[in-house]
């Protein structure tokens, strides 16, 4: 696996995760900066994401929705606080109503992303997620975040199969 470290801190409600990729920082940055690539990894397999607007610059905004197996849609948005290609992004990830306006009833999380080259064509990416409260964390997880996780493996299989068809 490419995930090299995970640190969960129950006291200050943060989770930090570090991963390494066999690619340049610029390539890893594209996973965030290209909306077509972003939508291929953001949503869990049962709730694939569609990015409808994408402005990854300080003060910018990204709108997306995820579509569930019953055709149900969950709308969300990011407010970009910092973006320094190809090094870092800080964004608030919130839930939106169907018309895209923020839904204040559901909690948002803050994500801090750092991307750095570590030599030999490899790149380290770290993500720190901060929850506003334990209740918020519980609510987010209860909302079916885990739903698609068990199927992450089948998603990988699907991508690999697609790759075989193309080549």
């Amino acid at each position, binding site marked *: 696996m490419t995930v090299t470290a995970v640190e969960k801190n129950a006291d200050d409600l943060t989770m930090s995760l570090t991963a390494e990729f066999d690619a340049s920082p610029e390539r890893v940055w594209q*996973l965030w900066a290209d909306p077509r690539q972003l939508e291929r990894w953001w949503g869990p397999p049962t709730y694939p994401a569609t990015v409808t607007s994408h402005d990854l610059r300080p003060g910018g905004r990204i709108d997306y929705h995820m579509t569930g197996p019953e055709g149900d849609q969950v709308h969300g948005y990011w407010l970009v606080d910092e973006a320094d290609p190809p090094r870092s992004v800080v964004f608030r990830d919130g839930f939106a109503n169907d018309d895209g306006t923020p839904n204040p009833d559901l909690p948002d999380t803050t994500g801090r992303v750092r991307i750095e080259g570590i030599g030999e064509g490899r790149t380290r990416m770290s993500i720190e997620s901060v929850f506003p409260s334990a209740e918020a964390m519980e609510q987010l997880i209860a909302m079916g975040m885990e739903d698609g996780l068990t199927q992450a493996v089948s998603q990988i299989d699907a991508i690999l199969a697609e790759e075989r068809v193309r080549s």
Partner: protein
Amino acid sequence: MQTAAPAFDRVFAALADATRRDIVRRAIDGEEGVAELADHYPMSFAAVQKHVAVLERAGLITKQRIGRRKVVRTHVEGLRAAQRLLDRYEQLWRGRISRMTDLITDTKERKK
């Protein structure tokens, strides 16, 4: 013994204090009462008693009667429930990272 599902804000608030975390660790053996626990810390019996009360309300410890004594015992399930929340969030991100890895592999393969 019936214990209600822990309220997570209470659990995390209870665990935010170093002394309370230490009490939870010690009470896993469940052999000491509040007075014996208090001997481990440079603070008053009343202060330790307060910490124990916070942990008890959070569902992280219980007091059990053994003969004539009352011992403090960690409610391991309460502790696990708190950890499980973070575990599930970790799984979400692990899923994302593996999809990222696949995408990177995907573009490399196509270039070949």
